[in-house]
């Protein structure tokens, strides 16, 4: 009897010991390196950190010369001499589902857009943010979403006006965060709808953002500048002029002292929106690598004979001949990015002046005003002012030539040629399907029904 009791007692004691150890939340584990979405967006600090993540994705594209440098390979101002198959596909006007710089641009931009949508959705519940701070964050989110959507739209969609009603496909518009696997495969919006979304995002940003300037971050002026760029790209000159004019009249921006200053000096008066690069997060190497001459030989991108001719036609005093371009043996290459590290301009005042000039001309502003804009650029480049050109066609030509030299290799030329419906973009017409990037395989394999680019 005694033994029986002992056995029972011991068994119960051991069993409860075991149960205690087993029930103390064996299945409750801690993921130390990662946070749940809820925890990652729970308070002011975590939202700020998530915002850094969003800027970092943009830095991975716009901050490393994507899509700028691949579009240069399409536009004809450079010759591609490298052996990267992705760039070769672009250079040979034979893009595929896999063309890495564009497919990476797509993936990365949408990663950013998803992160933006997560922040926007969570924002109302963040208790330790003031309304002012919330407006600022929402404004930055809307700005960045507008920028990303627009920059993709210019790569995957035909130029505004390709179809009269602009019902031709643009990109996928995503305004809700991805938090499950259901319903992810959605189609492309029309170019018309994409523009509407981009403009609405940028206008919200314009109204939400303060105008304090912080290099590397969005503000009101950046939103205004981008609105000018967007309207201009769709040839809506009235609006483009109006937004550009705000900046021209606002007096906040002016051209930097020398052409190279805007590329090499932080905090200059010309840059409107930059990607801030530090040595720790240096994506600058990618863009530098395309243009910079190294000990191993010529860079992948060298100046095309066509562009060289345009440059040579400019007066010999033109500072840009030394500051943007260098000669090395038989080839010339771009030096805008020939430094170890610098902030990368996304949009700068020189472009606003060109928009102001050209849109102004189109809507009938006085020719003197148009020439004044262009002469600001020429003066800074140490090129004699032009006060003699007259007539719309001649002025458009002047603006185009000046713009080509000033904005060279920054990813401007391709979109300029498409917007002006050039019939010769390296032999292709502005509306040629070969100028469209292909919807990347990363999208197609998860979204088999998506409308492909021809």
């Amino acid at each position, binding site marked *: 009897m005694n*033994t029986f009791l002992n*056995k029972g007692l*011991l*068994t119960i004691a051991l*069993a409860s*010991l*075991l149960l205690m*150890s*087993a029930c103390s939340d*064996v*299945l*409750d*584990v*801690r*993921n*130390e*390196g*990662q*946070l749940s*979405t809820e*925890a*990652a*967006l729970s308070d002011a600090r*975590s939202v700020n*950190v*998530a915002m*850094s*993540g*969003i*800027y*970092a*994705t943009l*830095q991975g594209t716009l901050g490393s010369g994507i899509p700028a440098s691949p579009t240069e390979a399409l536009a004809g101002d450079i010759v591609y001499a490298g052996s990267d198959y992705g760039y070769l596909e672009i250079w040979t006007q034979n893009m595929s589902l896999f063309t890495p710089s564009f497919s990476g641009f797509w*993936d990365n931009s*949408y*990663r*950013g857009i*998803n*992160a933006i949508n*997560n922040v926007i959705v969570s924002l109302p519940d963040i208790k330790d943010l003031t309304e002012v701070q919330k407006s600022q964050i929402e404004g930055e989110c809307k700005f960045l979403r507008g920028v990303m959507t627009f920059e993709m739209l210019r790569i995957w969609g035909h130029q505004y006006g390709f179809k009269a009603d602009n019902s031709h496909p643009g*990109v*996928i518009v*995503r305004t809700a965060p*991805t*938090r*499950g696997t259901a319903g*992810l*495969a*959605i189609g492309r919006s029309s170019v018309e709808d994409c523009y509407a979304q981009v403009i609405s995002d940028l206008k919200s940003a314009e109204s939400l953002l303060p105008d304090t300037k912080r290099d*590397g971050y969005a503000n009101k002026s950046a939103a205004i500048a981008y609105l000018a760029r967007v309207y201009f790209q769709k040839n809506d000159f009235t609006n483009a002029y109006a937004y550009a004019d705000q900046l021209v009249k606002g007096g906040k921006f002016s051209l930097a002292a020398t052409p190279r200053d805007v590329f090499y000096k932080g905090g200059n008066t010309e840059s409107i929106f930059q990607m*801030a690069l*530090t040595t*720790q*997060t240096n994506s600058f190497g990618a863009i530098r690598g395309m243009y910079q001459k190294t000990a191993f030989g010529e860079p992948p991108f060298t100046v095309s004979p066509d562009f060289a001719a345009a440059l040579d036609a400019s007066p010999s005093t033109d500072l840009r001949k030394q500051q943007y371009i260098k000669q090395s043996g038989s080839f010339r290459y771009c030096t805008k990015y020939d430094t170890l590290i610098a902030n990368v301009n996304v949009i700068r005042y020189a472009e606003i002046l060109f928009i102001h000039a050209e849109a102004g001309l189109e809507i009938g502003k006085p020719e003197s005003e148009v020439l004044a804009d262009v002469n600001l650029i020429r003066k800074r480049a140490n090129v004699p002012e032009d006060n003699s050109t007259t007539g719309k066609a001649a002025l458009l030509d002047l603006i185009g030539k000046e713009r080509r030299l000033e904005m060279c290799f920054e990813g401007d030329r391709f979109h300029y040629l498409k917007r002006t419906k050039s019939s010769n973009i390296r032999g292709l017409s502005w509306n040629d399907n070969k100028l469209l990037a292909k919807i*990347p395989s*990363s*999208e197609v*394999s*998860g*979204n088999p029904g998506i409308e492909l680019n021809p």
Partner: protein
Amino acid sequence: MRIPYALLLAFMFSCSGIIAMAQTMISGKITDRKSNEPLKGATVRVDGTTMGGLTAKDGSFSIKVGKGGTYKLSVNFVGYKKQSRTISVKDGETASAVFNLEADLLKLNETVVVGYGTTQKRDVTGSYATVKSEEIVNRPAPSFESLLQGRSPGVQVLQSNGMAGTAATVRVRGVGSISANTQPLYVVDGVPITTGDFGSGSIATNSNALSFLNPNDIESIDILKDAAATAIYGSRGANGVVLITTKRGKLGAARISMGVSQGIKTEANRLDIVDRDTWINLFYEARRNDVVDSLQKLPVNKGKSWTNVQGMIDTSTTWQNIINNTRMPQGFTRETAANTNWLNQTLRTGNTQEAYLTISGGSETTKYYFNTTYFNEKGFIVGNDYQRINTRITLDQKANDWLDIGVSFNANREENNRVNSAWAGGFGNAFSASLPIFPVYDSTGAYWRPQTGLNPVADLENRRFLATTWRLFGNGYAQVNLADNLNIRFSGGVDFMSLREDRFAPIVITADPTAEERRVQVVNWTTNAILSWKALDLEDHQLTVVGGMESQRSEQRDLGTTGNTFPNNYFTTPQSASVRNGYAFGTEFGLISYLARTSYTLMDRYLFSLSIRTDGSSRFGENNRYGFFPAGSFAWIMSNEDFLKGNDVLTFAKIRASYGISGNAAIGDFTWQGVYSTGSNYNGNPGTMPGQLPNSDLTWETSRQLDLGIDFGLFNDRISGSIGYYDRMSYGMLLNERVPSSSGFSSVINNVGEMSNTGIEFNIRSVNISTPEFEWTTDFNITYNVNKIISLGTITNPDGVDLGFGETRAIVGYPFASFFIVRSAGVDPETGLPVYYRPTTVAGADGKPIQNNGLNGRPLTLEEARDSLGVPLAWNATWRVPTGKNYPDFFGGITNTFRYENFDFTTQFVYQIGNTIYDDAGKRLVGNMGFSWNQMTKTLDRWTEPGQETDVPRLTLKGNRDINTDRFIYNGDFLRLRQLTIGYTLPKSMSEGMGFSTFRIYLTGINLLTFTSFPGWDPEVVRDHNGDQQRNGNQGVTYLTPPQAQTFNVGINVDF
């Protein structure tokens, strides 16, 4: 020390003695039929009663039966066949009975360890393979697992390579997953242990958490193969379970065993590469070819043949000068070129030493076991060493008549000097980028340093990568015997691993010396309570029930720091570095389980078993936290039926069938969670980004398995074996399914893949000769396995899922780890250029184009091998087709054991048939002078003149031949003399005179012979990779992977 059993019995049954004053007894003796030696410890039982006992040292027994009558006595002894006989005894008298037991070659009453219990071999209904201690001890091997190779059907084992401290891959019944771990669950004395690779990558050799296991401590290894056996391990049973039972103290006086061994170790095979002069000639031949090629293309030479132009060059001093003035890599000329045999510089004769001491023994109440083993290895690659010290102690105590308690504790320390190998440089560099024209030392006597790349001798001799592992492993139990047929056992175990990596790259190998110190700590603990109840124990009905619960938790924490910029060359740890960067990592998982099994035996011939387990795991999505894993099995011992009883030919026959479900939970600790990850920093500020799409439905991978088998014994069991069939379907395999990348994610992990492994296993054991002087036994096993990918979910691209480098892939309809590669059509005899198959595209049933397998497998005609302009077709990635596979059709082993008087002799061959090996380095080592690598002698078959039929193209210094084609896929069949042992045991009279009970001296050779057509280093190869998916797909792929080791060992074992 022992209480004579007769006395004990006499006491026990004294009650019956009171009634009949004159004792009525049956006494007798049990002996071995062959040797007539007495058998101690045999069970003698009077059927239908509780009377009985064990035999004494002289084999005698004596049972009081109370009163006269006729009794049926059954004698049972492990390793012998059961015997029964009817004995009549009169009141008050003593009847005598002598039993000569016949050895049971099938060992049907031997204990088999099954999950959470043991059973007799006869009663097994599932599929188990047992490897005994004597099969694995005294064999030098890079890893404990590699000792299982060729021992059991259905268990494929490949040692990665012969380097010290490396792992083997073990696959039970084929590979059962694409992206999750496919190694079996290792359970040591009931505790699932930490396994895997915790070393930091980038040196091309994986480290092995199993390496701490000391073969000397292992009593037996039971490998659970079918669902009936593995389902009791639930969500971790799908890849098979390896149950390791360690040695413990046994009843008897203290037994002391000691042994020492010494061995030498070299590479098992050496790659045939060209020497200096040959390499130089090949280089200039390539240069001449390039000149001929460009001249032939000039308009002025239009129409001139290759031979013509070549003749022109050979007779032109100008051209000869141009060719000969071409500098070789790193600027060497014929005059300045050194003559280095880099293999001789990086390989050496290694050696091994082992010494052990075991002390064990025990009384009825206390049993103890102690072992300490020291193992030291100097590897065959310069700089590669390994050292292990194991200490183990166990204690089992019968606390009282209803309580047993016990503990075991292991403390192990390992030290591994690791070196760069394979693609990471070091040894891999010695036969690739290090050309025979390069010197080891420059004119000042310092290490010669190439402008790009490295000097492998400098690297191997000076890079420090010391991995020190402490492994503390302990467990304990308390078993309460609630009743004779009911007990509950509580046990708990802790497996603590602490790995410290101390790395330093000094100034002689890098301009910026770097140090790193990394600590990894893995703690893993298990507790369980198991109730065992022998519910029925009647003559015709036996029913046992096992039930219990178990919980486990495992945590890993990594912490490390790197350091740069040292004050001088003598400070070599991060402590002294001016620039330090730290990093940290942590992960954990938990598991809680409930299990039950019931077994029922009817009339000694119909066996039924049913098991269930429920596992809850932190690794499973919140909607699928708990998994349920049932299995059922049935066996029929046909030979116990009347119609077979006494059959002389078929002396034993058992038919088995089982079906069940088990899981694979090796799916990553946090795979299901939707998370934000750190690291997206901007402008110096930390940033986070969504990192993983949540999948709350994510579960274990599942395997359902049907198993049919026959165990047989023929001719008095002189020939015995098993034949089995299995059909294993893995489903719900984790795959990254694509989601639209515009969602912000590229993929989500889903349980979607399906893969089948179907196979036949056969093993046979034949006692060829069995006389007291001479014994000869042969064991043979073979497994045939067919693997096929059934589904990859929504992944429909023709090249399936990439499994790593070298185009190894999982493609629907093909075996796992097939190669997806452009097929080579040889060399165009006219131009010497390589040509390839261009698959024709045909419309599939759904109208989408599908590729056929390269012109339906027909070789290209020369016309087809050229395009319309007559140019040989160049390589094109879109021409890839599935071809070859790296898992074999057949594998197994043949072991012969001979004993003649006091000599013993063992040979073990292992083999593998039907797989291919992809030599990923072949594209650079054979005929590709443009890559500036050394060349295998196969390059000498290169094309040199028009009309020549060969498979190695014209040499060139230009152009890109660095491409994957099936030219580098080789037949991977091999037959290898894995082990040869000759031993001599001193006759008892002699050894006892010296004070030993046993004295044996032996000589063992490992990997002495290999028969293969594979031209690389070694057909037994696993390309090392980080990550489960890569590891699953890269056996049979090599990229500069080192060979296996060949070892000669001599040793002495003594017992006293």
